[in-house]
């Protein structure tokens, strides 16, 4: 298979050129968005290299030459964790655990502290890890929501090609009728993935689009219906009401729908992600998180905070702009890439 050969080829190129992000010229010409495609682990590691630098690097720096762990060291550790976007609450929890162990003399040196920290992070992420089961229903309806510009449409595009690749019949509903050219963007992704698109004209009622989408999914015997929604700030009450209405319409047409509501979060987002998750969860039955744009220097530390605070599983992570750059989230791998 091509897909198996590519990562190897890329790694060789990367090694020869010594560059971190190899770009294949022939590919980037016709499909500008298809970027390099290293192995998942490398990719993730590349993306998290800065997280690695800033988190572990600084922790190591902090520990170096210090045999004794004291209060001021813990306070600095606290600051480091906060600055990795882990959130104040999670940070306090983690430092408290560390303090307790310190009191019981279970932490002798920096290495022990580091191990404990790693354990704590894995624990929090494992608690919320769960893969998405799309065979529960047919058609399985997935609604994708989030604030503006986090990558909802791109995530849908990637999901669509992932599912069509598995031999599923996928239908897309262009529920973003607000932003200029959002439906066109989805149409292009649909074409790439080989998925049909249900759309209305701009400015139409998204619930009407979703209604048609549900009807078409039933009539055409689709396995999966992916519903795009317009980006909305979680503080806009009327737009959150609109989301509720879309859910109601779906539930009426297809019992149990939407089966999955994915909240898309940008890895670069800071503490506001907590507020986002909270309000989106109040409005709809959010059942999973997609963390996008992890290919940058963004830390994605917020996922630890959001996951453990709201008990939401992280379903997928986006590690690039290419069609295949959406991966199933694996907490152990994620933390391994950090450490």
């Amino acid at each position, binding site marked *: 298979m091509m897909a198996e050969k590519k990562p190897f080829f890329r790694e060789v190129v990367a090694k020869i050129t010594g560059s971190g992000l190899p770009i294949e010229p022939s590919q980037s010409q016709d499909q500008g968005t298809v970027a390099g495609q290293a192995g998942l682990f490398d990719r993730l590691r590349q993306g998290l290299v800065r997280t690695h630098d800033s988190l572990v690097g600084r922790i190591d720096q902090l520990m170096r030459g210090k045999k004794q762990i004291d209060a001021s060291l813990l306070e600095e550790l606290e600051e480091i964790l906060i600055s990795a976007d882990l959130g*104040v609450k999670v940070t306090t929890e983690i430092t408290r655990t560390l303090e307790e162990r310190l009191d019981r003399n279970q932490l002798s040196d920096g290495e022990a502290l580091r191990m404990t920290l790693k354990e704590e992070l894995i624990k929090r992420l494992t608690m919320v890890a769960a893969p998405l089961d799309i065979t529960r229903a047919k058609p399985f309806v997935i609604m994708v929501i989030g604030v503006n510009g986090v990558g909802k449409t791109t995530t849908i595009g990637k999901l669509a090609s992932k599912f069509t690749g598995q031999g599923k019949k996928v239908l897309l509903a262009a529920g973003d009728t607000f932003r200029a050219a959002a439906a066109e963007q989805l149409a292009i992704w649909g074409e790439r993935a080989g998925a049909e698109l249900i759309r209305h004209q701009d400015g139409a009622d998204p619930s009407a689009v979703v209604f048609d989408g549900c009807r078409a999914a039933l009539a055409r015997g689709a396995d999966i219906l992916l519903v795009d929604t317009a980006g909305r700030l979680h503080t806009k009450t009327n737009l959150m009401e609109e989301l509720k209405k879309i859910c109601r319409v779906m539930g009426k047409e297809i019992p149990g729908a939407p089966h999955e509501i994915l909240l898309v979060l940008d890895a670069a987002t800071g503490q506001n992600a907590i507020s986002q998750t909270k309000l989106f969860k109040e409005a709809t039955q959010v059942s999973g998180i997609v963390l996008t*744009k992890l290919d940058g220097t963004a830390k994605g530390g917020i996922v630890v905070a959001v996951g453990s605070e709201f008990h939401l599983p992280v379903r997928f992570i986006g590690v690039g702009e290419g069609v295949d750059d959406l991966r199933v989230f694996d907490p152990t791998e994620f933390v391994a890439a950090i450490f």
Partner: protein
Amino acid sequence: MFESLSDKLDLVFKKLRGQGVMTEANVGDALHEVRLVLLEADVNFRVVKDFVERVRVRAIGSQVLQSLTPGQQVIKIVHEELVSIMGGGEDNGLDLAAKPPVAIMLVGLQGAGKTTTCGKLAKYLKGQRRRPLLVPADVYRPAAIEQLMILGRQLSLEVFDAKGEREPVAICRAAMKYAELSGFDTAILDTAGRLQIDDVLMDELVRIRDVVKPREILLVADAMTGQEAVNVASGFDERLAITGVVLTKLDGDAKGGAALSIRAVTGKPVKFVGLGEKLDALEVFHADRLVSRILGMGDVLTLIEKAQSTFDAGEAARLQEKLKKNQFDLEDFRNQLQQLKKLGSMSSIMGMIPGMGKALKQLQGAEPSEKDLQRIEAIIGSMTRAERADHTIINGSRRLRIAKGSGTTVQEINLLLKRFSEAQKLMKQLQKLGPKGLMKGLGGMGKGLLPF
């Protein structure tokens, strides 16, 4: 979500009230709170550290002013220092003084809001009597060019037609030439979103810059960005030497601490803020307002501006006339309620008024809730036009009908009518007293004005 800084500091200083001078000891706790508030607002930790040090130096030993409590004193210092970091008072306008066509380049991460900002900026410049040309240089994201085309159509502005050209540098070069020949004085370049560590794409930006020689290179940054903001900003600044920042999506509840980090690290000013999805939701940046927002303090200026843009000026004048003649009726009252609703939820309005957050907590439900307002609207909605114009005609049987129609009780209607006539009486008195009396009356009035 979080308690405001002033609440927290009030708590810290409760036990210290009455001390004349701030000492190292009593400032320490306060600064810890300041630090947490800033970190929670996504201000970069290094920036926070430096900042807290500066405040410490200024606060220790400073005399507590008689009019202020120590907590307020610290807030005052924090506020002043933050505003000075944000470059308060300096001119944040666009520098477009060059031989036309002048190029403005928008750069940033994916999804920061570049294309939308392009449209907003074009509208803003159009309002300034300039003639902007929109240039789509995002050839990567699907339908990005279509998006800009649609925005151009909405604004009736021309979007440069790249005619199938897929190379951003070539598009920009051709666009500048076209702008010069066709008499456009400004060209707004919408570049593709990219990561600051992506060397290939960053090189592309450098090449575009060298070709078009833009007067302004604006970094479009999401207000919700976390600690990452510093890396992004310094990454773009090092390669391109940006001239300013546009902070987008500030209409949510993000504190926008990222702006503070960017400013502190790059020294580049925030020039505009994006406050909504509509094309006119772009405003010139005000440092003090952002600082108030970060500190969780009220923002009266925003409220006033919001009110001004929501309330119809003609309607307001008509209302004033009616008030003068003492013809303010239930219909007007309902109109006012509806306009109030347009401003946002009751709690968000209250949140913008300094001190109101705390007062709200103490009142706990004494304020008219959204539900109460809805009931009042329903009651008025169930009245006939004649009843609204003159509420004195509403007798027992009319009350019964209104109660049935609005799904409320006669008691509620009685209460509303009683309060309304009281308010009317009060207004009458105020009219007699004239403008001076109006001020005096307002002071003691408190709850009486609105009939609920």
